[in-house]
C-alpha cells in the first residue's frame, strides 16, 4: 500500500504526531535549559550556552528566508545590527523588554521596505540578491557611523541587566535561550505551513510557483520580515551581552558568513538544519581556544567544514532526508494505475452549458522591445470545450498562454474569466481564479517529491485546500494520471512521459475551470500519445475546459472541438478543426505560399 507522505516527506498520519512530539520536545528543552539557572551553574556554562543559542537564533532566522526560499542573503548583519543599535540607544529610555521587542519590529520594518522594492524585480535573485542585501549592510553601517546613532566612538551600554536567580548572566542566558527556541519554533511552524511550502516552491522555480497560485511576493516578504524580526531580537539581546558596540564589529561580514556556513552545514531546507549547524560550528569554534595552537586549530576546523560541505552538499539534514527517503522507498509497496480512485469533493462533470463562454480574450497585444509577439488576438473558450491552439513555431502560442496565465501583462487587451478581467491581477491570482497550465518542458519542483509537487498545487490552486484535503486530492490526481506508484520519487527519478503526466496532475490538482496544455504530447512515443489523448478526454469529462496547444495534428484533430490558428502573433483562423485546416491562409502559414514557375 502506498505510504501517504506529506510535503515534509513524512508519513501523513505521523505529521500530526510529529507536531505534537515537536511541541513536547520544545517544552522539554524549555524546561531543561530554562531551569539551568535555578541550579546556579558556573557562569561560564551559561555564557557558553548563550553563545550557542545566539548563533542558533541567527542561523535559524536566516534560514527562514534564505534556506527555505533560496534567496541567499548576505545582509543578515543589517537586521542583527539594527537590533544591536536599537537596544544600545533605546534601553536607557524604556524597559529592556520593550527595547528588545522594538529592535525586532524595527528590523522587520526595514526588511519589509527592502523586500517591497527588491522582490518586485524578477531578476534580482541569486548573486544579485546576495550583493544587494550586502549593500544594505554597508548603507546602514554608513548611516550609523555618520550619525549620532554611533558617530564613530562606539556605544557603551549603561543600562543594568536585571539579575534573575541572582545573576545577570542568568538573565542573558534565559533571553538567549528564549529567542533561540522561539526561532526554532517559528522555523518549524513555517516549514510545515503553507508559507513554508510556498517558499520551498519559490526556491525551486518561482515562476511555476506563481502559476500554481502561490503568492510569491507576499510569501517572500513575510519570510523576510520574520527572519529580520528574529535577527533583530537576537541582536538586541547580544548588545546587552557584549555591553559595548561598535560599527566595525557589528556590521562586519562575519555574521552573514557564519550564519550561511552554519545553515549550509546543517541543511538549509529543514528547520533543524541551522540548529545543528550552529551548535556544531559555534561549539567547535568556542571549544578549541587554547592559546598554544590557535592558528592550527582554526585551520583544522575550517578544513573540516570544507570537507563536510563537499561531502554533504545538502547539509546534515540533507543526508538524513535522503536516508529517510531510501527507507520509505524500501518499505513502500507499489500501487498500480488501475487502483480504484475516489473522486475528491468538488470534482465532477460540469453542469454548465457548453454554449456559455468561460474565457474571453479581447484584443490582446504584447511586444518585447518593439518586437510584436501578439497583435489584437481575440477569441473565446466555452464551458467544457477543448479548444485547439496551433500555429508554426514562434507564432506566439506560448506567449498567449503566458498572458492568460498572468505571467506576462499584455500591453493592451483583456482576459475575462467568467466576466472578470484577470489580465492584470498577477499569476497566483489567475491560478486561484481557476486557470492552470502545463509547460512544454516539464518544470516540476526538483527537490520536492512527485506527491509533494501535486499536493502543493492542490493547496494553492483554485480550491485552496487545507493540508489534509490537499493530500487527499494529490492522491486522487496521482492515481488519475497513473503516477501513484511513483509518488515518493523525485522528479529526476521519473522519465519524460511521467514528468509530462506529473505536469498534468499538478495542473489538475488546482481544480481549474480552464487548463492550458502546452505541447503536452511532445517527445512521447505513439502508444504514450494515445494514452495521453485518452487522458485529455477524461480531463474534459471532469468538467474542465481545455486550451490544447500542440504540433501533433493527429491529436489536435481528434481532440479539438474547435480550433484557432495563430501566425506571427495574429489570429488567422477560428472554427471547426477540419474547416480551419483547409483554409488557404492556414495552409500558407504552415506550408508557405506556392510559387509557380511561369
Amino acid at each position, binding site marked *: 500500500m502506498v505510504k501517504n507522505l506529506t510535503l515534509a516527506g*513524512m508519513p501523513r498520519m505521523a505529521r500530526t504526531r*510529529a507536531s505534537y512530539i515537536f511541541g513536547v520536545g520544545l517544552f522539554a528543552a524549555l524546561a531543561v535549559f530554562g531551569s539551568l539557572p535555578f541550579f546556579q551553574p558556573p557562569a561560564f556554562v551559561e555564557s557558553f550556552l548563550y553563545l550557542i543559542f545566539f548563533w542558533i537564533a541567527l542561523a535559524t532566522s536566516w534560514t527562514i528566508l534564505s534556506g527555505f526560499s533560496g534567496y541567499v542573503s548576505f545582509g543578515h548583519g543589517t537586521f542583527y545590527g539594527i537590533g544591536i543599535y536599537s537596544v544600545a540607544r533605546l534601553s536607557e529610555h524604556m524597559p529592556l523588554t520593550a527595547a528588545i521587542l522594538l529592535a525586532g519590529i524595527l528590523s522587520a520594518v526595514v526588511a519589509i521596505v527592502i523586500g517591497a522594492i527588491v522582490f518586485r524585480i524578477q531578476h534580482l535573485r541569486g548573486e544579485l540578491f546576495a550583493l544587494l542585501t550586502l549593500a544594505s549592510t554597508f548603507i546602514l553601517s554608513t548611516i550609523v557611523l555618520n550619525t549620532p546613532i554611533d558617530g564613530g*566612538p*562606539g556605544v557603551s551600554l549603561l543600562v543594568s541587566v536585571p539579575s534573575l536567580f541572582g545573576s545577570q548572566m542568568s538573565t542573558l542566558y534565559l533571553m538567549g535561550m528564549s529567542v533561540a527556541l522561539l526561532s526554532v519554533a517559528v522555523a518549524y511552524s513555517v516549514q510545515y505551513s503553507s508559507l513554508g511550502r510556498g517558499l520551498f516552491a519559490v526556491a525551486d522555480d518561482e515562476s511555476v510557483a506563481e502559476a500554481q497560485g502561490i503568492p510569491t511576493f507576499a510569501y517572500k516578504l513575510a519570510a523576510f520580515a520574520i527572519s529580520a524580526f528574529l535577527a533583530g531580537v537576537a541582536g538586541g539581546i547580544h548588545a546587552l551581552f557584549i555591553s559595548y558596540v561598535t560599527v566595525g564589529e557589528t556590521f562586519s561580514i562575519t555574521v552573514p558568513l557564519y550564519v550561511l556556513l552554519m545553515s549550509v552545514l546543517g541543511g538549509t531546507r529543514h528547520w533543524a538544519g541551522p540548529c545543528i549547524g550552529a551548535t556544531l560550528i559555534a561549539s567547535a569554534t568556542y571549544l578549541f581556544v587554547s*592559546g598554544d595552537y590557535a592558528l592550527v586549530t582554526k585551520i583544522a576546523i575550517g578544513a573540516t567544514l570544507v570537507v563536510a560541505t563537499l561531502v554533504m552538499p545538502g547539509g546534515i539534514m540533507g543526508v538524513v532526508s535522503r536516508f529517510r527517503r531510501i527507507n520509505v522507498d524500501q518499505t513502500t509497496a507499489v500501487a498500480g494505475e488501475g487502483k480504484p480512485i475516489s473522486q475528491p469533493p468538488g470534482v465532477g462533470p460540469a453542469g454548465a452549458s457548453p454554449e456559455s463562454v468561460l474565457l474571453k480574450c479581447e484584443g490582446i497585444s504584447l511586444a518585447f522591445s518593439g518586437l510584436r509577439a501578439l497583435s489584437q488576438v481575440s477569441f473565446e473558450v466555452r464551458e467544457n470545450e477543448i479548444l485547439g491552439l496551433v500555429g508554426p513555431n514562434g507564432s506566439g502560442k506560448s506567449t498567449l498562454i503566458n498572458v492568460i496565465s498572468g505571467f506576462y501583462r499584455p500591453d493592451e487587451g483583456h482576459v475575462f474569466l467568467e466576466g472578470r478581467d484577470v489580465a492584470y491581477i498577477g499569476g497566483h491570482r489567475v491560478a486561484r481564479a481557476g486557470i492552470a497550465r502545463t509547460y512544454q518542458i516539464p518544470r516540476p519542483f526538483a527537490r520536492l517529491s512527485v506527491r509533494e509537487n501535486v499536493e502543493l498545487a492542490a493547496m494553492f490552486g483554485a480550491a485552496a485546500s487545507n493540508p489534509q484535503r490537499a493530500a487527499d486530492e494529490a492522491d486522487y490526481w496521482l492515481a488519475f494520471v497513473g503516477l501513484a506508484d511513483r509518488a515518493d520519487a523525485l522528479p529526476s527519478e521519473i522519465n519524460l512521459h511521467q514528468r509530462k503526466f506529473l505536469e498534468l496532475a499538478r495542473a489538475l490538482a488546482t481544480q481549474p475551470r480552464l487548463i492550458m496544455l502546452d505541447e503536452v504530447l511532445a517527445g512521447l512515443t505513439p502508444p504514450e500519445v494515445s494514452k495521453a489523448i485518452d487522458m485529455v478526454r477524461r480531463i474534459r469529462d471532469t468538467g474542465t475546459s481545455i486550451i490544447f496547444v500542440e504540433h501533433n495534428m493527429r491529436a489536435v484533430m481528434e481532440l479539438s472541438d474547435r480550433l484557432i490558428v495563430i501566425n506571427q502573433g495574429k489570429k488567422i483562423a477560428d472554427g471547426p478543426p477540419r474547416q480551419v485546416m483547409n483554409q488557404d491562409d492556414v495552409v500558407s502559414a504552415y506550408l508557405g505560399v506556392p510559387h509557380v514557375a511561369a
Partner: protein
Amino acid sequence: MNSFIMKVVRSVSAITLTLSVAFVIAPSGAVAQQNSDTIKIGGTLSLTGPLAPTAAMHKIAGEVYVKQLNEGDGLHGRKVEWILLDDQSKPELARTLYERLITKDKVDFISSPYSANIALAVMPVAERYGKALITSTFSMPKLSRYARHFTAWSVGPTPEVSIPTLVLDTLAGAGKIPKTMAIVTGKTPAADFIAAGAREVAKQRGVDVNLYLEYEFGTRDFGPIAARVRQADPDLLFVGALGLEGNMLLEALEKLNYAPRNHFYLYPSPGPLAASKLGANALATALFEDLPPMNQSKAASDFISAYRSAAAQANLPYQEADTQPAAMYSTLQTLTAAVRETKSLDDSKIADWLKVNSVETLIGKLRFDGPGNFGADLTKIKQVQNGKWVVVAPKGFATPGATVIAK
C-alpha cells in the same frame, strides 16, 4: 517516540549537552600542566582574527615576562603560570572565556586582552567577580567605568587634550608653530575622540583647522582625501590613523606630488612608516622605544633582548621591542608589583593599593589616581629621522641628541 523529529530533537540535545560538558572538561593549553602550587594568571589574546598581528606581540611579551618571573622567585615564592586562550578577536567570546578562566580554571588573576573593544566586553565579567583588570591598550578614559580597571596605556585622563597639545608643543619647541592644521581621522573609537579633541585644542591655540575629514575604518582608497589635504596645504597634517592608514594616505599624497610639511599619526604601524621614504619626519605617539633613556634600565634591556629573540623565533614580521609589547609587559609588571607590595592575592587589596601608589614599569612610572583610574600621562612623541624612529618629546624621554625636525 520513533519519529524522525524526535530523533532530531534528541540528537541536537545530545550534541549540545555533550559539547557543553566538553567545554567544561576541555583542557585549555597550559592548564593541562597546571600545578596547585602555582599562581595562575589567566587571560585571552586575539591570536586569530583581524587583531592577531598585534596580539602576537602581546603574547610574546607576556611569555617573556612570565618566564623571567619564574626564573627569579616567582610570586610569593610560587611559580607563575599564564593560561592564555584565543578570543579570536571576538568580544563575546572573550567575555565567555574570562568567565571560564575565573570560574572553572579558577585563576588567581586575570591578564589583559588586546584592544579596547574586547576589554570593554570583559569588564562586566571582571566586575562581577571583583577581579582587578589591568589592560594594556585601553586609551579611552571616559569608558573606564569599572573601579578595579587600570591600564598601562598611560595617556592620562584627557588624551583628547594632552596628545594634540603635546604635538603642537613639540613643533613649537622647534620654533614652528603651525598656523593651519588639517585633521583627517578614521571613525574608530580610539581615534575619533582624539581628533575631535585636536580640533578644540587647535581652536584654543589659534591654529586654523582648514580641513576636518573623517573616513571609515577599512578605507583603502585615500585619493579623494589626499586631494583635499593637498588643497588645504596645512602647516600640520594631524592624522587619526591606525595601522597602515598613514602609509596609504602618504602614498596617495605622493601621487598628487604633495608631501606634507609636518605630519602626525596617532597609532601607526611603526615598521612600515619608518621604512617608507614618504614617512620622513613623520611624528607619532609612543609609550616605549628601544632607545635611551628608556632602554637603559636592566629591566628594559632584559626585556628587549628576550623579546627580540622570541619575536625572531616566532618569525614576527616586526620584531622591535617598542610600545605594544612594552604595554603588555607593563601590565604584568604592575600586577606583580601590587601582589608583592600587598603580600596578597586578594584583588580588592591589589586594586586599593594601585589607586594610591605608583609602579615603575618599562613605560615609566604608572599612576592610577585620576578619573577612570587614569593617572600619569606618559605619552611621548617620536619622529622618523633617517629611516628610524627617535623620541623627540617630552624632554625627559627624548633620545639623546635628537631634536624635532619641523618645517
